[in-house]
């Protein structure tokens, strides 16, 4: 019965969304307030219905109701309860329902935020959201219904993909979706602004928090996914340039460009057409990512069940949403005229440069991801683009972006003094050079590249710190003055500093692991000793064991270096229900990095093929990504309701006045 309620609620949400879109567009044209009131309230109703629908599916998973096809195919009674619940979105149908749930949640929040936005802009934006919701619910109802029944109900399910029985994978899709779907709001705002022929700093102020929130979620989602791949897939790496990874990275790059250029719209009332195009592009790339994952046009380790009908449907959504938005853009963007004047050496000039780098990076990823498809269509050849392509082209662009990002934040709006900024950057430059020399001296290999990479990292971090030090007068001001300035500083400034520091930390980790990783592949029998990065690793024992729904081989290793020793163990699991193997790498943080061991099957009878890695600075990847996301969160807190000019004239807040010395 619950399953039918869920299905019915979803159909009702579909009908309501159609009615909502129609009434909002009528409301905008006629100015009749009743239509717009219905349109706004409908958002809340649709969200409630989607939540009910999702709740019903979750209930079916939680109670292992195998009369529901989706539960039968993707769950099993022998699974831990928590993974039964997370299994709700561990499959195609359920994950699309989660996608819709988040979409309706954002729409409802946007509807509730009504009074902050000009009425017509708000209604049109909600109207576009309603169209997107309609399209995706239709996709679920017509091609991917999670509520289908199965009679008679089988006694047990066919098991959840064992790779999904993992906390990392249970929580990373929701974060990714919050990101992907979050970008639908800037998209809808962009389309609405084009239709109205008006985008101004109010528009920028409205869009920025949504873009920032979506970007923060996406950052977390990607980082969690990478972390999962690192400890679960057993290949010792953290990023493989797999099509599905790229699908999440492209909207991130475009979204990063978006959050920077929306700031320009907000502060300088310029770059409007560009910001709108970015808002469209970012959500479009999210949709393309969905298409990529669900249609099976490219092969990937993440491939979901491939069904051509779904691919065609998503392509239709793609054509309507992206094609429609870009058509509106082509016809209407000329109506958006900039009011602010533009100097090349200024904060806005720097942000444009930043956009160029980010989009170049995005284009590189896009091209590499779809090149096999292009070649297949043009020549019929089957090829794959592997990591070396990305590893060759991506870092130089990143280094350029880092070089400029370091002092971009120091540039003043409108017009900046290049000389004084270069002077301010002298300490950062000095620190970067010192760091480079240190690397040259202590690194055992990859000296030149390492020195250069670390130099860029310190340069970027130095730039971020210089900016904040300058703004709070860390050197030269009194302590109290500094403190009050620090408090008065807009959250956006703190956010960008934190995000840039996070990026530097992340780049440090990425450089460290790619340049100084140690790797050994050996055949080891019990009692054998091999060495990696100065660790003497002994394979102590391999034992067979039986888990709740898998059989496993557990290998225990002991590692010793410099008088210290510890043990670590990893597993290779075989899930008979799905005939799948997974690995749990043996990982132990020690020194500046991780000792990471994965092992294969003892087929020869002479020993196990063992891969030993020492991954230096790998922790910086996760902390860096976390810090970057935290920066996004802090900047999100900056509502920027008052233009900067007004803010400065205001008397200092009471708290900071007390802190100032008498």
């Amino acid at each position, binding site marked *: 019965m619950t399953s039918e309620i869920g299905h019915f609620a979803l159909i009702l949400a579909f009908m309501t969304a159609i009615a909502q879109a129609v009434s909002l567009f009528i409301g905008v044209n006629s100015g009749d307030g009743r239509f717009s009131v219905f349109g706004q309230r409908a958002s809340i109703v649709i969200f409630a219905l989607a939540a009910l629908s999702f709740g019903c599916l979750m209930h079916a998973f939680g109670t292992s109701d195998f009369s529901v096809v989706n539960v039968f195919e993707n769950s099993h009674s022998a699974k831990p309860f928590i993974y039964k619940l997370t299994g709700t979105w561990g499959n195609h149908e359920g994950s699309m329902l989660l996608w819709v749930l988040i979409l309706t949640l954002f729409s409802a929040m946007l509807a509730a935020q009504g009074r902050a936005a000009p009425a017509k802009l708000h209604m049109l934006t909600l109207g576009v959201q309603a169209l997107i919701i309609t399209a995706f619910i239709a996709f679920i109802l017509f091609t991917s219904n999670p509520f289908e029944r199965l009679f008679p109900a089988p006694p047990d399910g066919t098991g959840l993909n064992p790779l999904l029985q993992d906390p990392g994978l249970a929580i990373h899709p929701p974060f990714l979706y919050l990101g992907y779907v979050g970008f639908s709001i800037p998209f809808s705002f962009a389309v609405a602004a084009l239709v109205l022929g008006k985008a101004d700093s109010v528009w920028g102020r409205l869009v920025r928090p949504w873009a920032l929130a979506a970007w923060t979620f996406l950052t977390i989602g990607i980082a969690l996914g990478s972390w999962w791949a690192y400890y679960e897939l057993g290949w010792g790496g953290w990023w493989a340039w797999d099509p599905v990874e790229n699908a999440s990275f492209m909207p991130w790059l475009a979204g990063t460009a978006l959050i920077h250029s929306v700031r320009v719209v907000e502060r300088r009332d310029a770059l409007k*057409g560009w910001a709108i*195009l970015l808002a*469209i*592009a970012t959500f*479009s790339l999210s949709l393309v990512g969905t*298409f990529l994952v669900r*249609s*099976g*046009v*490219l*092969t990937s380790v993440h491939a979901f069940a491939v069904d*051509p009908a779904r*691919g*065609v449907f998503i*392509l239709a959504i*793609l*054509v309507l949403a*992206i*094609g429609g938005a*870009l*058509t509106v*853009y*082509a*016809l209407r*963007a*000329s109506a958006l005229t900039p009011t602010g004047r533009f100097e090349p050496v200024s904060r806005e000039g720097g942000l444009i440069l930043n956009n160029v780098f980010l989009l170049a990076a995005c284009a590189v990823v896009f091209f590499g991801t*779809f090149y*096999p*498809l*292009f070649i*297949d*269509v043009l020549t*019929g050849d*089957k090829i794959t683009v592997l990591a070396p392509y990305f590893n060759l082209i991506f870092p130089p662009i990143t280094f350029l972006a880092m070089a400029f990002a370091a002092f971009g934040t120091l540039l003043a709006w409108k017009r900046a003094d290049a000389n004084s900024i270069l002077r301010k950057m002298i300490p950062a430059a000095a620190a970067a050079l010192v760091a480079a020399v240190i690397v040259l001296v202590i690194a055992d290999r990859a000296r030149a590249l390492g020195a250069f990479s670390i130099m860029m990292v310190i340069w970027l971090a130095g730039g971020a710190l210089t900016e904040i030090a300058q703004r709070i007068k860390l050197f030269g001001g009194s302590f109290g003055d500094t403190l009050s300035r620090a408090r008065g500083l807009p959250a956006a400034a703190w956010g960008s500093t934190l995000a840039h520091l996070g990026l530097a930390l992340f780049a440090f980790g990425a450089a460290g692991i790619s340049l100084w990783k140690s790797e050994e592949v050996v055949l080891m029998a019990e009692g054998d000793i091999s060495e990696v990065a100065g660790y003497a690793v002994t394979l102590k024992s391999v034992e067979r064991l039986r888990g709740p729904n898998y059989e496993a081989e557990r290998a225990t290793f002991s590692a010793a270096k410099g008088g210290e020793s510890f043990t670590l163990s990893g597993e290779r699991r075989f899930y008979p229900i799905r*005939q799948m*193997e997974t690995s749990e790498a043996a990982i132990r943080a020690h020194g500046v990095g991780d000792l990471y061991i994965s092992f*294969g*099957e003892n*087929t*020869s*009878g002479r020993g196990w093929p063992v891969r030993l890695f020492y991954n230096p600075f790998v922790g910086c990847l996760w902390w860096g990504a976390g810090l970057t996301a935290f920066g996004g969160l802090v900047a999100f807190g900056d509502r920027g309701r008052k233009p900067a000019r007004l803010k400065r004239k205001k008397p200092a807040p009471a708290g900071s006045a007390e802190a100032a010395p008498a």
Partner: protein
Amino acid sequence: MRKVVLFAPLIVFVVVGSFFAWGLTRDPSRIPSQLIDRPLPEFDLPAIQGFSEGLSTEDFKGQVTLLNVFASWCVSCHIEHPLLMELAAKGDIPIYGLNWKEKPGDGKAWLDRLGNPYSMIGDDRQGRVAIDLGVTGAPETFVVDKGGRVRYVFIGPITQRSWEETLAPLIEELRKS
């Protein structure tokens, strides 16, 4: 001029979108085999160590058969193995094995341990025949018709589902013709 530039994103999308549409009609994981509907390449392989009979092209004539490329070092072959055993036990269709790039003795040891689903096995130690067959990896399974022609190539381990949905109906059809 400015107006034309504004159409650029739309044009880019139309181009990319048509690639997507075209891409939907293709299955990227299936590398088209050059051998489909052609006779098996001629070979006459010796037996693997511990067995007496080898495998040659002549053995495929007269009935629908499966040629399964396997090796003891191949992880996916382990996964596929129980299904092959099941098929062999039913005895519906002869399964011939091509033991690919195997060290002498390893093949027999593997079969002794897990069971032998193959009615005949050829030893392709150098991988020459595999090259003629266009094998991209193990396991790979060729469906060969009564006339000794390759009719289908299945890449990767056969699963219960792919057997029921793809291979079994195809074999049924080949038998009738």
